[in-house]
Every structure is written in C-alpha cells, then in structure tokens.
C-alpha cells in the first residue's frame, strides 16, 4: 500500500460525511410523509463497493448499521450485475433487519464504468399493504400478512423507471400518492449522493478514495480497540421478559444478553433468548447485531462519524431460529420492542463499567396510530404519532422527556400540524410526572396526550411498552419508571383502559376520546439524597405535591401565598428518621 496522505484522508472522510448530510436534506425536503419530513424516521448511508460503511447520517441509527448487510445480500443476489443508473429496492425484513415498512432504496455508484460505491436510504413508508394500515402490525403471524415484499428488484433500471413495479406499488398500498412521493424522494437522495461520490472520484481518483477510507476504517477500528482495552475485562449479563408477542400471552418471550469484554474485543451472546415467537416481535439478525453495535458506539465514541471500523472488534453469538434471529417468513412487524430491550440491556450492562456514559432505564417506544382505509365515512388517512416519554436519569441529572433515546431519536409532531392534516383534535398535551422513577435524580416524566376523534370509521392501534418486566429500571437505589397506558372513552360509554398494546381496534366514531400516557424513566440513586432545592423546584412547578416531597424525598416544603420554601429543620428531621 502506498503511504497514506493523512491530510487528504481527512478531507475525503469529511466530504463523504457531508455528502450524506446533503442526501438527508434532500429526503426531508422532498418526502410526502410526515414520518419522514417531520419525524425523520429514515437514514442515509454511503458504502464501499464491497458494502463497508463509509459514512452515514442517521435519523434512526439502526437503519444505517444494518444497511451494509442488505446491500451485500443484493450483491449476492445479482452476482454483481449492476449497471449505471440502477436503483434497487428491498424491504425483506430478513435482509434489512427491521420490519417490512422500512424500505431500503440504494444505488450502485459507477465512475468510468467501475463500481466504486453504494449510496442508500432507508425510510419508513406510510403504508406497504399488509393487514394493518401503516405497518407496525401487532398480531401478524407471518411476513405475508405484513405487506408487499421487495427483494432487490430494480425499481429503476439504467435510469429508466420499471413501470411495472411502480404500478404494482400503486395497487398494493393504501396511500399510493404518498408512498410514490416518498420513493421519489429516496431516489432523489441517492442520486444526490451518487453525484457527490462521482465528483470526488473525478477529483482524487477512485483508488485514492478507497485507500483513504480503508485507512479511516482501520484507524477507527484501532481506536475502538484501544477504548475497549482500557475497560476492565469481565462478563456482564441481563435479560428482559416481554409480556406478549401480540398473538399469545402464555408463552415466554425472553431476551438475554451477555457482554464479555476481553482485551480489545467485545463478545455479545444472546444465548438463552426465546425461540422465534408466533407473533411479530421477532427481530431479524442484521438489526440485532446493528442495535448492539450502535449502542456500544454511542456509549464509547458518541461524536465520531460512524463507519465500518466501529464494528470490527465485535463478535456476535445469536441462537438460531430465535426471537433475536428468526428466519423467513417469521413475523417481525413490531420488531421495535426487542430493539428497545436490547438497547436498555446494553445500558444496564455498561452502567457497571462506565456509569458516567449511560442513562438508567428508559420508557419503551410508544405511539398512537389512527387510520381509515375505507372512504365511506370520508377520505382515507393514516396518522402515526410516535411519542416521547421518560428516559433514564443520568449520573448528574434528571432523565429527559423530550427524547426517544432508544431507536435513534425522533422529533414529535406539532399539534397544529396534526389538527390541520387529520380529523383529530388534541385536547391536552402535558407532562405525566407520576410515572417518573424516584431517586437522587428522577427519571424522565411521561407525556399525557388526549386525542378527540372528529370523524367516523376510525381504527386505532397502540404501540405501548412491554409491562411484564420493565425496561425503565432504576439504578443505584433509584426506583423504576412506571408504564404507560391507553384509555379509550367512546361517546356515552365507559372508559376502557389498555395497559398492553392493541392492534386495529374499532371502528370508533366521532367524539371518541383517546388518552395516551407514555411511561416514565428509571431514577438514579436514593431519593433521600436528592438535593432539596431540586425537590423545591419540582413542587413549585407542580410536578410533585408538598406531600410527595415529604413522603418520597423526605423534604419539607412550605407554601406561603404564591411561593414555596424549604423547611430545613424539618427536612433534617425527616431525613434523619428515614
């Protein structure tokens, strides 16, 4: 190998990262689906001609981590038979790693006739057919029920649209205009990336770019190893039991993780995890590996632009035909529960190793889905509202609410946009402090949101966390966060409370009230050690009552008119007695 030009190497690396940022901008600005332009449930990735990740801009981190594996599957399928101007599409969950709604669109990049790279976008489609609108179906039993499946078809071949495929999409999804608009956005984003890579090749030569990125990946790998070598060797294990697979509740749905740090490598074993579930909570292998790898990268090197070097020193042991390694055509549509569990389990293990780099346990992904596919009562629509909730406390502060730490991080949807676009009125949107774990630093609070339905014929699905074995575990004496719930109150009817996830209930009519409460985060440390000033602030801001302050934290707060103060003497007594 030639001596590497270290300066040019950095320049090439920066330009590739910048290229993914430009691709992401194009996605956001052209997508038709709020899940993409508002919530940013997508990611973009640039890979080498052999499928090594060179750069990414994640919305959802696990998408890019799993992308190289999907591209390699496509290379094997086509035996390298790609041409300039081809655009491929794949959403087979066993190749992309997530669920069938997340569609990968990628493009081989050619320069002077030679395949030099791939660029791709993974995006959550508004609908992909299947038994439930919008995807994330909680009760499928095989992939066929989940929607239209692509496996590396050329949606564009040598620059020409494969009209048959587009027509096929047209007659298989519930909102074809939105889906095709998003697909156009994904292609535009790939073309953008392609141009950037080609101009880099023209300027520096393909060989130089390959060498530079090989060098960057090698450097990154060495740096990961050095970081890991500095951690003490040891084994750390944990497990989470899920309450249901969406189809049956009597089985056992266990996810086990053992992290072994040995020298400069990390070994992940998921042995002991349950066999493939009948319902759709299974997580395909690319994503199982992807979420562990991206969690580790985030814990150890959070600000480093991601590349293939971050995952070279990792080994995985996944039990075959299991909940974390299912095979076609096992159902996977609500794959996110296991992802969230794995991430929380990573934090639990690493809290013992690097407590200043991990949060305590957080709430699990929660979201409300409303839809109507028939036009009898009005225009069909699909509305998805992933919601924030309580994240785990940190070593030096309370847990956050306005984040969705687990699977990437997504912004919420403004109420004014929800109401303009969909037949719903939001009547309440506030913190739900009662679900937060209690401790020296409290867990993040949940969110309470009331949706009033303004039309008829509406079906609802709720992604609500697993309640058998909380993810929101407290640390070091802090209590666990409480779980969330859904309450449906039909007009003139009694409220029905759901503590577990439900799929496609309805139809509901005008006036129905849906209340979603998201779960709270786990706390850090003993409540009795909480700074009384923080307790005072929580009382002043009506997150807790003075009675809570006394009972939970041993702090006496007095109210004088409109203001509050700490009674230090009483607080000392309370805390001494505790």
């Amino acid at each position: 190998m030639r001596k590497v030009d270290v300066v040019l190497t950095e320049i090439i690396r920066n330009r590739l990262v910048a290229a993914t940022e430009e691709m992401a901008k194009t996605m956001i600005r052209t997508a038709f689906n709020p899940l993409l332009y508002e919530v940013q449930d997508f990611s973009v990735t640039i890979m080498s001609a052999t499928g090594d990740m060179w750069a990414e801009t994640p919305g959802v981190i696990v998408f890019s981590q799993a992308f190289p594996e999907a591209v390699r599957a496509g290379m094997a399928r086509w035996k390298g038979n790609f041409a300039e101007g081809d655009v491929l599409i794949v959403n087979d969950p066993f190749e992309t790693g997530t669920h069938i709604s997340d569609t990968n669109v990628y493009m081989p990049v050619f320069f002077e006739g030679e395949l030099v790279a791939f660029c791709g976008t993974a995006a959550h489609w508004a609908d992909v057919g299947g038994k439930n609108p919008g995807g994330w179906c909680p009760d499928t039993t095989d992939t066929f029920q989940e929607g239209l499946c692509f496996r590396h078809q050329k949606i564009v071949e040598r620059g020409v649209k494969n009209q048959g495929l587009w027509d096929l999409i047209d007659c298989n999804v519930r909102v074809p205009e939105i889906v095709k608009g998003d697909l156009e956005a994904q292609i535009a984003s790939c073309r953008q990336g392609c141009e950037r890579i080609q101009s880099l090749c023209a300027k520096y030569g393909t060989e130089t770019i390959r060498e530079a990125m090989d060098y960057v990946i090698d450097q990154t790998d060495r740096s990961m190893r050095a970081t890991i070598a500095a951690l003490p060797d040891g084994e750390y294990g944990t497990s989470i039991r899920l309450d249901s697979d969406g189809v049956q509740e009597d089985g056992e749905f266990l996810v086990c993780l053992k992290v072994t740090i040995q020298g400069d490598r990390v070994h992940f074993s998921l042995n002991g995890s349950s066999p493939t579930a009948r319902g759709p909570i299974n997580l395909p292998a690319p994503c199982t590996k992807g979420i562990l790898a991206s969690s580790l990268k985030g814990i150890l090197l959070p600000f480093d632009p991601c590349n293939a070097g971050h995952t070279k020193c990792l080994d995985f042991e996944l039990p075959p035909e299991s909940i974390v390694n299912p095979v076609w055509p096992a159902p996977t549509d609500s794959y996110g529960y296991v992802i969230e569990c794995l991430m929380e389990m990573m934090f639990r293990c690493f809290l013992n190793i690097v407590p200043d780099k991990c949060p305590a346990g957080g709430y699990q992904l929660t979201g409300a889905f409303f839809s109507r596919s028939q036009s009898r009562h009005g225009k069909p629509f699909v509305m998805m509202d992933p919601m924030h909730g309580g994240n785990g406390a940190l070593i030096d502060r309370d847990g956050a609410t306005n984040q969705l730490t687990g699977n990437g991080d997504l912004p919420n949807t403004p109420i004014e946009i929800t109401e303009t676009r969909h037949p719903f009125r939001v009547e309440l949107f506030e913190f739900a402090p009662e679900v937060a774990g209690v401790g020296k630093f409290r867990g993040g609070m949940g969110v309470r949101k009331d949706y009033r339905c303004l039309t008829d014929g509406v079906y609802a699905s709720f992604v609500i966390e697993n309640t058998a074995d909380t993810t929101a575990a407290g640390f070091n004496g802090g209590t666990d966060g409480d779980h969330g719930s859904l309450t449906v109150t039909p007009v003139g009817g009694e409220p029905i409370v759901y503590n577990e996830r439900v799929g496609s209930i309805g139809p509901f009519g005008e006036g129905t009230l849906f209340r979603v409460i998201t779960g709270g985060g786990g706390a850090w440390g003993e409540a009795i050690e909480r700074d009384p000033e923080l307790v005072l602030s929580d009382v002043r801001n009506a997150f807790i009552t003075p009675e809570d302050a006394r009972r939970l934290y041993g702090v006496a707060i007095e109210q004088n008119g409109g203001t509050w103060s700490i009674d230090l003497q009483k607080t000392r007594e309370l805390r001494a007695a505790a």
Partner: protein
Amino acid sequence: MTQDRYRVAVDVGGTFMDFVLMDEATGAARVEKIPSIPDRLHEQFLNGIESLDVDIDSIQQIFHGMTVGVNALVQEKGAKVGLLTTKGFRDVLEMGRGGRKPVYNFLHQAAAPLVERYLRLEIPERMTFDGEVLTPIDLEAVDTQVDLLLARGAEAIAICFLHAYAQPAHEIAARQRILARHPHLPISMSHEIASEWREYERTSTTVLNAFIQPTVQTYLTNLETKLKYTNYTRALAIMQSSGGVVDAKTAGQKPIRTLMSGPAGGVIGAKFLCDRLGYANVICTDVGGTTYDVAIIEEGRVLERSQAEIAQRPILGSLIDVISIGAGGGSIAWLDHRGGLQVGPQSAGASPGPVCFGRGGTEPTVTDAHLTLGRLDPAYFLGGRMQLDTDGARAAIEKKIAEPLGLDLQLAAQGIVSIAETNMANAIRSKTVERGLDPREFVLLAYGGGGGLFACSVAEELEVPKVIVPNAPANFSAWGILTTDYMEDEVRTKVMPFDAAHIAGALVTMNDLETRAASGIGQYGFADGDIERVKRFDLRFENQEYTITIDLEDAWQDAASILEGARKRFVESHIRLYGHGEPDAPLELVSIRCRAIGRVRAPEIAPMPERPQGAAMRQLDVYFPRTGKAVPTDVFDRETLAAGQVVTGPAIINEWTMTTIVPPGWQSTCDTFGNLVLEPTL
C-alpha cells in the same frame, strides 16, 4: 452645505464597535474602531460619533447594528417572563420537539425552558385550525392568571394560543384585558411575533421576544434620548436579521427580529457592491477569528430562510440564510482519538489567541499554520502593530501535529490549512447544493479579517471561477449596513389548496398583509408610491411538508395568471432542487408573505484615486501546495496598487487588517474601485 452630507453606520461587535462615515455625494468612506465596552455602550456610541469629527447636523441618518438582544439571550439575562397558553398546553415550551442532533449521544441535554412551569399558566379558550372559535376566551381567567404570574415575579408577558396564526382574536382580547389593568406591562403576542404554525417554535419565538424586549427597549430609548442631547433628532435605523432596517420603536417592540443581524450587514453590502459590479450570483464569505459565515446571493436575490436557532432555541422569522461554522484564523488544530487531523470548531479566540500572538496560547491554530508557511509577514502584521512569534508557532505545530503524524513541518502546516479550507468549502457546498445551485456559476466575495487568506483555495476546491476582495474588507460589514433599506415583513400561515376556488381568499389576505407592511414603512416617511412590495407564496405539493417560496410577478395581474405563473415557477424550482416535479399535481398554499421596502438612496461607490502602479515591497519565502516547497514570493502593499494593476501569483497583497494570497496559477486585478478581482490563469 453641510446639511445631509453624511450617513453613519455603527456596528457593535464582541470586541470592537465599528463606525463608518460615508459622504453621500462621493461615496468616500472613513472608518473608526473603538473598543466595545458592554456596560458603557451608549457612551462609546457617542464617543465614536464624536471621533468622526463632523458636524452632527450634517449626519442625515444613523444605521445601527446592535448586539444587546443577542447578548441578553446568550447570557440568559433577560426579563422574567410569564407565559399564557391555551388550556391543556402549558408544557409545549418545555416539551419542545425533541429529536437530538447528535443521535449517538445518549447523554444529550436539551436547552432548559426559558420560562419555568410555574410561570406558564393556562387560559380556557380554543380555536380550530381553520380559525373558528371552539371555546370563547375566559377573560376573567386572564385576570387571575396574570395576577398569579405577577405575584410570582413575572416582568413581561408572552401569549401563545393554539392556531393564533389562523385567528388572533383571542390573543388580542387577552392583551387588551391585561393592558386595561396593567397599562405598562410589556406583552408579546405570538401572532404578531411569528404568525406561522408549529406551536412550539412559535411559543419559543414569542417567549424569546418577551425575554429580551425590556432590555432592548430600554437600551434604544436611552440611546435616542442621548442622541437628542447631542442635537441628533433624525432617523436611527436598526438592522434586522432579514437585512433591512426598522425604526428604533419597532425594534424595541419586536427585538427578536434584530437578533441575527450580526452577519446581515456584510451580506447586504455584498449585494449592493455586486449589483454595481454586475455579478448576480455571489457566495458571500465572512471570515473572522472564530467563525466562517456563508450566505448566498442568487440572481441578485439574497437567499433567506424562515427559522433560526440560538442555544438550541428556535426562532421563527425571515432572516438571511447564513451558515456559520467554527473555522477561522483562531481555529485550533488537534488530533482526534483515531489520530485524525481535525481543525476547529474550538478556537483560541482573541485571548489567548494563536501561539504566534505570544499571549500564552499553546495550541496550534490556522493562523500559526499560515505563519509557518510564510504567508503572514511577521514584521508587518496589523501594519506592524503586532510582532508575531514564528518560532513559537512552528514549535507548536511540530510538537502537536507534525511529529505525531510523522509529517514534515510544512506538510503539517499545509494540512491544517487544507482541512480548514475543505470545511469552509463543505459549508458552501451544503448551502448551494440544498438549493440546487452550482458553485461554478458564482463569484466568491471574501471579507472579514481572514477572507483573503483562504478565498482562492476555497474557490479552487469548488471550481468557483472568480474571487473578489473588497476595499477595507475587515470593516465591510459595517459599510454594508450603510446600504440597507427599510423593510417590514408580514406573513400569515393559512393552508389551502392552491386552485381557482381558493385563490381569491388568498389574495384578500395578501392585500391585508400588504396594507400592514406598507403602512409600517409609511411611518418612516416614505410616500406610498415609493414603497416597493415583494409578494410571495410558500407552495408545496399536496401531502408534502416543506415549501418553496415563490416570488409573485407584478405582471401577473389576475387570479388566473397568478395561479398559472406561480405553479410554473414552483414546479421549475422543485425540479431544479430535487430532480422531479409533476407539472399538474395538486398544490397547496401554506404561507402568504408580503415585504414592503422603503428604498434609502443608494450611496455612491468611490472610484480609487489615480496613482502609479506600486512595486513589490519585498520578497518572502512562501510554501504553496502547488509548488510543494517554499518559493520566493512578492509582497505588495494594497495601498500602492493602481487601478488595472495585475499581480501574478505567487504573490501576497498586504493591507492593514488583511492579507490576500494570490496562489501560483492565479492573478489579481485591481478594478477601478479598488476591489481585488482574482482569477485562475491556468
């Protein structure tokens, strides 16, 4: 004949206040710089005016770029704000939108809400998204909640009700009710501050306005009073983020609009200068010690955007689209955990500054690298006012960068400069690409104290064919303020299909906005016929979210031609930006915008005096990547260059506050106004 002879710009920065005095008749400008002392700004303001040494009666108007508002915000020293929201929604401000940018950072911390929860109280009232009253406002609740806020120490009130952009009646009613009982309480209403949808962003903007308003208003009122004592009673025009000016009264009520005015002066100056020179497409680059600011002029229009962020807090409102990255002379070179060479965003700032300043800096910076490469003249830096420590700079680069990377000193120094330059080029690329623009069709204008050092290399990287370095580049922003016009923006979000059935309603709204914007400008003494209107629609394809802003042409007289013309223009823009666009797909109109402009008489640009061509002052050995070694390089004094004089690279052109590098393969031509025009010769 002294009457109305001059206009003056006062631009306050972090370290200095810049004063520019321009002779209306000739365009000749004079520059003063005095230290900016935070608690004595008024005094320094008057001292600066006095130091210009002209009769106060001869000053026709004073233009002012201020930082009072942004400082109050950054230091979080503002009023204690009480917020009134729609019942059920007081937590919107604290909830935010979420979505952390560094997605892998599990320790990320969002900005704390500027108004704590106990100061956010709710009012029973509700509008629907289309502006119908669902729940009438409970005005007695306004009384009790405001009393409670005042008892809890609130000094200013912000009101943000849901869908107030569609129907502001409840905000107005609440305000009237409050003023009836508390006539002097400062109140900011969301529909006035930012009449656009997205409740969090609008609340944030309104709260920020309320937070800084008392401070800014007091500052401006006192300034006007003090100016009156000096017998100056004419216009005091305040620079806005959008690049226009407003009067002090408006700025005192809506200071949020002035928050990002810092980089605006330079961009407006760039537009003015480039209009005169005949360049329609310009990349404006302002290089300071710490940041590199990029803005774009396309086809003679300064590109704007409608949202900014300060300290993670969003602000809605028209502003010049400036991207700012941490790259400048003071940017520090360092090796990351991989051993990869990085430059910035950390900066050594002015203190301790680069190693070569000899003020205790130990980390090698871009300026140290330039010095090591021979591009800065150690004896003549800042016109010889500062001695540079070349040995110190070289030693720091050797030890911290060259040795660990196994590079020789000059390659390491060139590496630092190259990485800073590609970061700059990436910033420009990001700005042009997201608009679908090709940098090769632009000229690059370089100003700020470091502009000339990087301009040609950055241009080469982007294949920009021409670079312009204006006169007095370090004071260019202040000069730019002198060329601004009065500007009032009105906007309303009103989502509707863009079709024949709805266009009439949209045009009624447009008329209303036009009346309001024009009457705003009319207050400054402009006759109605002298007020220009720029009318714009934010359009998108149905189901899309992000919009493209389309200028309406005066030639489109009736509704049908507006529908047709705007559609055509929208689809063309969409195809250019994103590569696709169905000509007949349904469109939605999202926001209606009107800008009224009162044109200030354009100043002249002074031609440079005739003089013989200057010779090189001396030679330095300078390293260039293209030569691969240090080569003897002529150094010119810019003050001695004559109109039409060509300087062929490699060369260095020095002036008081800036160094311009003419690399090998480039040449510089001095135009008749004294601007340096640099072009590649290869």
